């Protein structure tokens, strides 16, 4: 963590130093079309403070309908982890740190050690793995840690305090705070209860805290200022891409 050049530290710094809350747009690689990957990445990296790239999976059990649809489309477009890493390497530095969001099995199939060694060349600073909870993550965390790549831990409102402490301490890059129990993509207002929860996570964490799942309007983003360090914008960006609109403009509009 002390080395300022590791992926984990680049990710942390990009969020911590952005105007609050930092914006972390998400898109599924190769959706809606493979050939748009570079332009979408470029636009989102310019508009956001870090970019989350979804690796498609055949059984995305923690995702809502929007990201399931994107994942299915990307698979139909023959998008694989290998393709994504090559595309990232070819792209060069997009100007913002990149984190990959993937279910376990594509990572296992690729090989964790091999992946950890490749991340640096591809500008991947961190990994978010929704089906790899704290109890199961040590082998992956250790391999990524050796290369300075963050394994981002997720916390939820149902996470008990003791567990929250362990997850915040064990996370790298940032802490991903799921703002509601449920699959991704639901529209929610920023309730007093949610604000209390996010502030609590902030107290437990020395890393920036980013709120995820269901953020889609400038009003929500404003309401989260001072409550959380960053905001992940997932389903809303994917829907914007489905409509054929400019994702960079959409993300910039969230700042107004």
């Amino acid at each position: 963590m002390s080395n300022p050049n590791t992926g984990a530290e680049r990710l942390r710094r990009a969020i911590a130093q952005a105007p609050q809350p930092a914006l972390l747009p998400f898109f599924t690689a190769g959706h809606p079309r493979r050939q748009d990957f570079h332009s979408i990445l470029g636009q989102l990296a310019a508009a956001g403070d870090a970019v989350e790239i979804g690796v498609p999976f055949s059984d995305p059990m923690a995702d809502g309908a929007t990201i399931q649809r994107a994942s299915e489309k990307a698979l139909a477009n023959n998008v694989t982890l290998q393709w994504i890493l090559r595309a990232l390497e070819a792209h060069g530095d997009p100007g913002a740190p990149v984190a990959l969001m993937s279910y376990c099995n594509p990572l296992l199939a690729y090989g964790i050690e091999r992946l950890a060694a490749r991340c640096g060349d591809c500008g991947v600073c961190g990994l978010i793995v929704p089906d790899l909870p704290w109890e199961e993550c040590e082998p992956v965390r250790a391999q990524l840690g050796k290369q300075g790549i963050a394994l981002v831990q997720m916390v939820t409102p149902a996470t008990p305090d003791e567990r929250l402490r362990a997850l915040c301490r064990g996370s790298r890059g940032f802490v991903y705070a799921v703002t509601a129990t449920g699959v991704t993509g639901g529209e929610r207002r920023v309730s007093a209860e949610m604000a209390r929860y996010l502030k609590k996570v902030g107290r437990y964490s020395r890393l920036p805290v980013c709120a995820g799942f269901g953020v889609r309007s400038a009003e929500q983003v404003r309401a989260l200022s001072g409550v959380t360090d960053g905001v992940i914008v997932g389903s809303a960006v994917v829907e914007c891409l489905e409509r054929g609109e400019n994702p960079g403009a959409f993300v910039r509009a969230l700042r107004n």
Partner: protein
Amino acid sequence: MKIQEAEARSLMAALLSGELPDSEGRFGPFGGRFAPETLMPALFRLERQARQFFADEDACRALDEERREWVGRPTPLTRARGLERAWGAQVWIKREDLAHTGAHKINNALGQAHLARRLGAAQVVAETGAGQHGVAAAAACARVGLPCAVYMGALDMERQAPNVQRMRQLGAEVVAVDKGDRTLRAATDEAFRAWVADPHGVYYLLGSAVGPHPYPWLVRELQKIIGEEARQQFAQSAGGLPDAVFACVGGGSNAIGLFHAFLGDESARIFGIEAGGKGPGAGQNAASLCAGKPGVLHGSYSMLLYDDDGQVLETSSISAGLDYPGVGPEHALLQAVGRAAYLAASDEQALEALAECCRLEGILPALEPAHALFAARAWARENPGKRILIGLSGRGDKDMPTLTQTLS
């Protein structure tokens, strides 16, 4: 996956002494809890409550009474004299087809419905492939007074139409899952999502010995009554132990239920039979143990059918109940340590064995256990005169649409 001999021996000893799954839900390298963080508190709570439930004498007595009076346990062990003459062996069949709702699934559904009530769940959700677990869940929920929603792949709804009607008649809501592969796997994805959306109000009544810990353990504990009864009945009827035990394996709940009581009996060979489908090619079968590699699906690290990029393969089987790309982690362990052998029987072989059982025994088995019947016959012919026990996990009435189509 193979495990070294010394390690295999120590894992087997741990399994037999009840130390597996361990505190992390592992059966050796397999199992675990590969679940979203949202579900982790619910999984811990479920494990705690399930352990309390099994330690609560009153709760167990109430469940036992229901098993006797409502399920109709113990189910009979039938000497299959017609098959014996044809195969040249001694053959006994454990009749889970005679359990209430027509399959072993009711053992698990009833137990978990009692647990759901104990946890104060407002809604039960379940996934189903052949519809047998869905029917069992619907019946068990009606019995304990809980609302039940069953997720079912749209393709399975077509090929198992009679069971869809039965579930509705029993008061369950049947939710058609018209995405992904439109079978059991997509239905399981969707049932998980319903649980992720409300981990406290919803009880997920998982139907097989798969999923994140504690499910593979919980389902085995509720199904092991099959083998316990069979072992005792076999001793009474035949004296001693069978030479070989056969059961079909999809997720593997009826198989683990039958096998468990025999794991310590070294003279009893154990065979699990998977769906060989149309053949050995990728996507042509559902034989996770025969053709898969270790991987993660639906919360558990086990043998799995997936491609070089980690994407789970579509599967194919004439039998909806075996049409699943994964398998319970305890089976993966039994295979890796060499305690059980896993083979595949094709669609055609299952159909042939089903017809033979109808003709010679007057029993219409489901397509799932017909896979086990085929493998048992093949083994009997190579091992004449041996004593064979076969788990007949369910009855074949639900397969009439498929059978009618195939015959015509």
